[in-house]
């Protein structure tokens, strides 16, 4: 049987009908199917090419206010019937919760650029050849060692039907590439790093650029020296700033976290939380973007959401359940697939750039942090860990040497009031784009003193 989005819609229609016949008062079925082709690199060579078909159906059934969920990876009638019976069993064993309810359908936006026939037509030979281009680009300098890497394509279809009237389907493609490894120079083994990039289309793929970026990152980590000890300005790359600072803030803007009393921003709607006008938007309707689609995991329309509005707390993210608990509306942020219950998640995140040239940021910072290997307490915002892929900077802003065993620490919510500036250019990743950040009062502990 050839699986298409329409096939999945029919399966979901039948599953919802069966669930209602077997005792559910309401039901939703979410089905997906994907074909993937991946060429895997290992130890500077081609390792293997893999091909997979992924199928799945997840059934939410409601028995009054009680919810049960079961999922299976086969799409035949018997398997789906068993999943429905199991979901009903779970529902009957679960306590009632007024937030267990389906959402009404809403008009969906049109989002273009999600399906590329060239990706769908790619063969095993094609992905293998692209993987070797990536490898060659990364290893122009033979000191670069690729531990693992991959290039892959995915062609997927998804559908959702609910007894409340939601009915939607979509087809999409993606192309991804990544590398993990380090530089080795004689007896010296440098710090590892990784890069990855995902696109919707084959035309956007640039293995040469990705490979070159990886090589520059790992070669820069050779010859590390102990770092300084001070409390003061640190330059965080776009990745590091997003990981430590935005990751913490986004967790606190999750409607479920707010409802459960674990968010430091719960009672801060409209209040300023940073000394610069951070403007952070999540938008699942951007044409051709990796995180885009017309609808979320509950079939609700994606839409732009201003999370931080000129430095003030903007909106909280809600899926259906967290919205009902908060007495709010879903923001179209239910994420997940056939194997998971819906929960709030991001689509395409964008932090507006500032106005500080990167050269000026480097002159003002003692160190530059490329990546963070440590712990961030999601609730308090305390963080400490090792500055990875990082450099000491001189007064002219030049990188003097890579850092080793240098710790950084602080509190996210405190340091958001110590931002000296945001870079004037956004760095574009797969589902995030944003600038680097220069932040004061960061605690840096290195062994150089």
């Amino acid at each position, binding site marked *: 049987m050839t699986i298409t989005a329409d096939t999945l819609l029919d399966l979901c229609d039948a599953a919802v009908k069966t669930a209602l016949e077997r005792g559910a008062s309401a039901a939703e079925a979410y089905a997906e199917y994907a074909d993937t082709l991946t*060429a*895997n690199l*290992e*130890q500077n060579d*081609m*390792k*293997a*090419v*893999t*091909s*997979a078909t*992924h*199928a799945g159906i997840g059934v939410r059934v409601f028995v009054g206010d009680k*919810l*049960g*969920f*079961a999922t*299976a*990876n*086969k799409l035949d009638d018997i398997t789906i019937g068993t*999943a429905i019976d*199991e979901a009903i*069993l*779970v529902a009957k*064993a*679960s*306590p009632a919760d007024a*937030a267990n309810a389906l959402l009404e359908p809403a008009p969906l936006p049109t989002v273009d650029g999600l399906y590329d026939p060239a990706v769908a037509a790619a*063969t*095993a030979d094609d992905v*293998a050849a692209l993987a070797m281009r990536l490898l060659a680009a990364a290893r122009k300098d033979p000191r670069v*060692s690729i*531990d*693992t890497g991959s290039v892959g394509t995915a062609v997927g279809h998804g559908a959702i039907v609910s007894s409340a009237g939601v009915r939607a389907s979509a087809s999409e493609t993606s192309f991804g590439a990544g590398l993990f*490894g*380090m530089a080795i120079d004689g007896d010296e*083994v*440098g*710090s590892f790093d990784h890069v990855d990039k995902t696109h919707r289309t084959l035309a956007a793929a640039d293995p040469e650029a990705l490979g070159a970026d990886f090589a520059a990152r790992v070669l820069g980590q050779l010859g590390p020296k102990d770092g300084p000890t001070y*409390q003061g300005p640190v330059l965080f790359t776009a990745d590091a700033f997003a990981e430590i600072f935005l990751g913490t803030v986004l967790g606190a803007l999750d409607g479920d976290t707010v409802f*459960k*009393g*674990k968010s*430091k921003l719960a009672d801060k709607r409209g209040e300023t939380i940073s000394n610069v006008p951070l403007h952070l938007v999540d938008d699942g309707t951007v044409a051709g973007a990796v995180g885009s689609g017309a609808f979320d995991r509950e079939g609700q329309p994606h839409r732009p959401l201003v999370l931080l509005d000129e430095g003030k707390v903007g909106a909280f993210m809600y899926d259906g359940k967290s919205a009902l608990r908060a007495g709010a509306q879903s923001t179209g942020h239910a994420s997940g697939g056939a194997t998971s219950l819906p929960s709030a998640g991001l689509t395409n995140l964008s932090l507006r750039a500032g106005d500080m040239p990167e050269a000026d940021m480097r002159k003002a910072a003692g160190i530059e942090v490329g990546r963070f290997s440590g*712990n961030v*307490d*999601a*609730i*308090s915002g305390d*963080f*400490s*860990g*090792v500055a990875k892929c990082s450099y000491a900077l001189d007064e002219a802003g030049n990188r003097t040497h890579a850092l*080793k*065993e240098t710790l950084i*620490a602080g*509190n996210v919510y405190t340091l958001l009031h110590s931002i000296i500036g945001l870079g004037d250019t956004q760095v574009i990743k797969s589902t995030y784009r944003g600038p680097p950040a220069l932040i004061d009062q*960061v*605690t840096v*502990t290195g062994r150089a003193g």
Partner: protein
Amino acid sequence: MFDLLEKYIHDDAWLELRVHDRQTRSFFAEDGLLDGAKLRRHGGIGVRALVDGAFGFASTSDLTPAGIEAAIRRAKDCARAAAKQRKTRIELPPAAAWKNGSFVTDAHDPVSARGVDEKVDMVLRAQAAVSAASERISSSSARYVELVDEKWIMTSDGARVHLRDVKPEFRVGAVAKDGTLMQTAVEAEGKTGGFGDLFRRRSMDDMVQKAAKTAVDLLHAPSIEGGHNTVILAPDVVGLLVHEAIGHTVEADFVLSGSAAAGKIGHKVASDLVTLCDSGHSEYEPGAGGIVQIDDEGVPTERTVIIEDGVLKSYLHNRESAAHFGVAPTGNARAFEYDDEPLIRMRNTYIEPGQTPLEQMIADTPDGFLLASAKNGQADANAEFMFAVGEIYPIKNGKLGPLHKGGTITGDAFDVLKSVDMLGDAFRWDLGSGYCGKGQPAKVDAGGPHVRCQVSLSSQGG
């Protein structure tokens, strides 16, 4: 199932056929609400083929003859595509010393004997108990997950194995709040077996009370001053050290990429006190969370001595890397589910216990810290590591002080092992909950005795 697979195994290509059926049941309660109750079935076949000197892999959930035949064709096509690009040719490794048959891991008070309603009730009661433990608890949670697996593995060169295994885990979390101060604590257990194995060492109530008390005590606990210190690592932190900082560097695929352990077999990499192993079995204490009787290439697992009396003795191998190094495979090839290709992964990683009671270790430490409650950690190719710990207790003049806020420890893994100067006499597996990540998850465990050594320590939050 073997009768079905037998029809396809005699091919012109070497084939590895792995049928894996997994049932996952997970239940999560938070703040009086059941927030996730899920039954998941995920089953199918993964096919590896060796053609023209390269591997190809294909998977499908379709176990009809047409589905299996299509997967085999795709695996061979993938292998041919890989072969066109490979610089070197892979030769079929020597056959392992197969131990064919049916293997079922022990389970005391099997999870199958309790229904969905009991498991729902368990998480609701546990999180309610955390909440009731103190008026300072602002949020409480409990999670129970069980992985129930059945596998059939057959290879063209003689492996023929059937396996059944269950891995349950249980976790409780507490968030304590006082004004604007908030602190969290988590207690978790992950084992192989049944409820009797999961709660053998600690009852659910023990975990509930510990999580609540720790979160509340951390609210006003002071922070330590950072620096390079003598520390006594609790078994869960030892587990994180041996898994993250050492274990990954000795996985043979990472060695071949140039990890810090490359070229070091026979070298002194730790103090004489240290013997460090990775095992598919559960030495010293039953029910470790990473038990693997036969790996996913059909190779019987063993206790692999990685470091013996301070000397590096072995890497962790699959069949291909073992052939490259001229040694026998160690049974470390693991795939999380049917649609994952087997990779070299750890199982149960540990340091052998010593002779010294913990009380004596503390009494013999003039100035240092006891570190417990391992959080996340990460290690680098150059053996530099970073771990977070949730609980720090200062030791002054041989006396243990009160709880302090957690922090981060860093160092070079092999330097830390060389600084080990005392080992406790009591052993514990304590890292069985959660998953190791390396492109795909894996259930592992790790542990050991209390270990005294030197590390760099900094407080959380600066």
